[in-house]
C-alpha cells in the first residue's frame, strides 16, 4: 500500500539527508515508496522545494534535488 503524503515527505527528506551524495535524481526518490506513482513522488518532491526542505541543483546538464544545508556546505 502506498504511503500517505506526509509519510512520503518524511521518507524523501530522510533519503536526501542520508544518501552518500547530496545531489539526487528524481528517480532516486522513487525507491522511497515503490507503490507510489512516480508522478506523485515528483509532485511531493517539488512541494518540498517550495517548502524549503529541498532545493534544485544543476550539474549544468541535469537538474537534481538536494538538501539546502548539505549542498551549501559542499559548495563552500
Amino acid at each position, binding site marked *: 500500500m502506498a504511503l500517505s503524503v506526509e509519510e512520503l515527505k518524511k521518507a524523501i527528506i530522510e533519503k536526501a539527508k542520508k544518501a552518500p551524495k547530496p545531489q539526487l*535524481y*528524481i*528517480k532516486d526518490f522513487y525507491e522511497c515508496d515503490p507503490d507510489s506513482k512516480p508522478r506523485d513522488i*515528483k*509532485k511531493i518532491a*517539488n512541494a518540498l*522545494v*517550495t517548502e524549503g526542505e529541498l*532545493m*534544485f*541543483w*544543476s*550539474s*549544468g*546538464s*541535469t*537538474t*537534481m*534535488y538536494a538538501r539546502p544545508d548539505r*549542498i*551549501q556546505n559542499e*559548495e563552500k
Partner: protein
Amino acid sequence: MAKHATPLLDELEKGPWPSFVTDLKQQAATKPECWDILGQLELSYKDRITHWKHGGIVGVFGYGGGIVGRYSDVPTRFPGVEHFHTVRIAQPSGLYYSTENLRALMDLWEKYGSGVTNMHGSTGDMIFLGTRTENLEPLFWDLTHDLKQDLGGSGSNLRTPSCCLGNSRCEWACYDAQELCNSLTQRYQDEIHRPAFPYKFKFKFSGCPNDCVAAIARSDFAVIGTWKDNIRIDQAAVQKYIANDPEYPANAGAYKGRDWGKFDIQKEVIKLCPTNCMWMEGNELKIDDSECTRCMHCIMSCRAPFVLERSKALPSASAPRPRSLMAPSSPPWSFRSSKSMPKMISRTSLI
C-alpha cells in the same frame, strides 16, 4: 579602450564575414563586462582549455530549469564574468514576436544582464547570455509579471515545445501545429519547469513533411502532419508546367533569378522521387500512392497540380491548398489575442 589585449581574437575580425569579436567590442561600450568575456576567451585560446565552469545552485525559486549556471574559473582576473548565467525565455508558438514585445525583452536584458543574446537556441527559446545570480529573481519577476512571459526548459527537464508557423502562414500545414504545441505546453508546464527525467526530452510539431522545425532530427517526440487519402492531380496544371508557362514557374519561382534552362518534369520531379512512384502515361502524370513516402519533393517542385486532402489524424486540421487557389494573405493572428500563442504562466500560479 580595450581592457585586455586580445591578439588571437582580433584575427577573427579580419575576414569578410561578421565577427562576434567586433560585436562584443561594440557591446563593451555600454556593458564593460563584455571586455572580460573577450579577455577570458583570449586566455582560453592561449591555454587551450575553457575557463567556464557550470552547474551549482542557480535558478529562481521553485524552478528547476530555465537558468543555466555559468561561472568563470579565473574570477579575479575577469570579475565581469565571475557569474555569467544563461537565461532561457520560452518562445511563443511559431516564434511570433511583436516589435513591442521584443523591445521590452531587450530593455529587460539591458537592465539585468549583459545585453548579449542568442536568437534562437535549437529548442527555440530566446537565450539571454550573461547575468549575475543576484539579478535572477528580479529579472524573473519582471519577466513574468510585467511581460507575462515565462522561462523555458533546460537541463533534464522537458524542453520548451516548438512548432512551425502552421496554418498561420503556410499553405502546407496539415493540422494546427500551433494549437497542439500550445496545448501540450500548457499540459506539461510542470515537466518544463521541474525535473522529471534523467535527460532532456523534446517535443516538436511540424505541420507537414517538409518538417521546418526539424522535428525528426531534433526531438524525441516528433509530430509531423500529413494528408489523408491520395494526392489528386490537376492534369491541366501539369501541362502548364511541362509547357514552361510563366504562370506556373518551377519551385514556385524560388530560383528564377538565374536561367536554369527549360523545366524538365522527368529530370526535376519524376526521377528525383525517392520511391519512383511517379511516371507519365502519355500526357498524364500518374502516382502510385501506395509507394509514396510523402516526402513532398514533387509538391515543392511544381505546386499547382497537386491537391491534398485535409488530414483527419489530428483535430483543427486545415486543408493545404495549391498556391494558385490561396486567398490574398492577411495575418490570421494578432500577437496578444491568438489562441495559438502559448499562454505564459507566472510562477505564482504554479505553486
